[in-house]
């Protein structure tokens, strides 16, 4: 039994596979975030917060679980580059912001009492720095040599998954979180940040273009994987590139819409 997904070279079928490491990670993460929220409520002397935050926490955890566990995690780790890309988007672009939204403002304010951590967060989540770090993580984790080296190992695969989650959290932090306070980073600027980060990032565009227009498959992990009937390697790679480009744009549109309406409501 494997504890985390990795390239297996076993022909694909729909037999369920168990990944206890994924379950443990999801449970620990969910419990820790809940406890963090509870600690925030205790410190603030009030347990009231917007109900949607609990929903966001639950939804974010669920999306992360779906992305890491069978079948998405299995297909992504050793069969289809397109599912690998879908997994990346689910982890970094959907689960990460949802989990951040699921942390209550009271819980976030606890960070203000931890000077060292706050200093690190302040630097890492500066919008420009967050953009740079996120793009570095995307570039590294989509480089063929890195993918083909790490994917066959469970530890390597987990490292990629966690890097995506961390990168997503860093990227979304300045948009979602109010700690550290950035009064000058107003909603219109956040909209611009999402446009740059998700729609016009040179790394995003570069990776997706390489996948779509490359003459030959980039990743040997997927080129030499046991084939899924009806899906050619080239089509799979092209689909992965399209998903990165179009999917990133769609997620940016959702985020931008939310920010725009919030800005319109508060400024009007």
């Amino acid at each position: 039994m494997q504890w985390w997904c990795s390239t297996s070279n076993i022909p694909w079928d729909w037999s369920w596979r168990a990944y206890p490491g994924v379950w443990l990670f999801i449970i620990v993460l969910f419990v820790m975030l809940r406890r963090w929220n509870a600690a925030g409520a205790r410190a603030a002397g009030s347990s009231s917060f917007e109900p949607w935050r609990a929903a966001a926490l639950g939804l974010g955890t669920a999306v992360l679980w779906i992305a890491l566990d069978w079948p998405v995690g299995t297909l992504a780790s050793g069969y289809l580059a397109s599912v690998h890309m879908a997994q990346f988007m689910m982890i970094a672009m959907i689960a990460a912001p949802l989990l951040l939204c699921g942390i209550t403002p009271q819980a976030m304010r606890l960070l203000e009492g931890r000077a060292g951590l706050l200093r690190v967060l302040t630097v890492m989540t500066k919008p420009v720095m967050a953009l740079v770090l996120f793009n570095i993580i995307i570039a590294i984790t989509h480089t063929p040599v890195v993918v083909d080296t790490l994917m066959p190992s469970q530890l390597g695969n987990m490292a990629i998954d966690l890097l995506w989650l961390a990168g997503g959290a860093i990227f979304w932090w300045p948009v979602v979180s109010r700690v550290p306070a950035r009064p000058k980073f107003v909603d219109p600027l956040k909209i611009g940040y999402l446009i740059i980060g998700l729609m016009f990032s040179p790394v995003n565009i570069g990776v997706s273009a390489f996948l779509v227009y490359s003459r030959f498959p980039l990743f040997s992990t997927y080129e030499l994987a046991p084939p899924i009937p009806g899906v050619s390697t080239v089509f799979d790679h092209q689909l992965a590139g399209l998903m990165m480009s179009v999917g990133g744009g769609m997620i940016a549109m959702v985020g931008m819409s939310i920010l725009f309406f919030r800005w319109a409501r508060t400024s009007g």
Partner: protein
Amino acid sequence: MGTPIARPDFTLTDTHGRPFDFRRETEGKVALLFFGYTNCPDVCPLHMANIAAVLAKMSFDDRDAIRTIFVTTDPARDTPGVLRAWLDQFDPTFVGLTGTADEVDRIQLALGLRPAQREAAAAGADSGEYFVGHAAQVIAFGRDGPARLIYPFGIRQTDWANDLPLLARGTMPRASPAATPTADDGALQPDPDVTAGDLVVSRVVVPVPSTAERTSLYLRVRNRGDVADTLVAIQTDAAGAATLHDQRMVGSSMVMEPLDAPFVIPALGEAWLAPGGAHGMLEPMLRPLGAGDHVAVSLTFARGGVVGTRAIVVPYARLESVLGAPAVRAPAAGRDDATGTR
């Protein structure tokens, strides 16, 4: 450069029911010869898809100089119609050949390949379902006749794209193993040789079980002494029992049965437990095995005593390369080395 493999002389039946004289039909052309079967879950469709993808990007003249020949090792299921439909998914110009199991085995033996062997499908599978263990390499015969290059499983489209145009123009691609190895080949290496007295045990490999009940054990034993020795018992921590089995042809079928003669390691020689011949049979399995796992193995020899070692578990597709096939895109150095089968 090693010894070239002569272009074989055989006639099988193509997917239109016509006789196909391999030597005559491919004369003056590059012939990519591969033995496989259409129900293959990995190696066969990957080789065919990758060759087809590269051919589609080549010039007409280069493409016209190349013939891809797929000989089925599963004639019972791969009827000409089935074979044609399967090959057409990749490239309608691919030639599919069928023959009796005897004929196909003879051709493979002549090329230094072990005959294909039928393996049980997963537990609970339909009785008509089974796998066929077969050689995983494509043999590339040059336009001048013999084959000087073989392409094991793991070769990528970029490698084909580099080599095929050169072969098509009658040029020998550089024989350096420049191709990218498969992602996990590095992790799937057998343990170092174990030396006990005159015996050296190496390349101890177990394929990922295709059923929950059993799998095989393969290895090589060299005897540096001047007295023959005999392997009398095998024990592992992965199976309730380990016995020596053999594969042999009965009529047109390959059957597996307990080895009825001592497994002798000749003096100053070597012996293999290998696919298609004598091998260790591990059953019942005590635990599931996945690629990269290790199995503790204890071998008892009549003279050499007990030798402990460890087997690496490898996917079937990697079996040949881990057992000792040449490096990716290695030149054919002689029959045994060229094929990677023993």
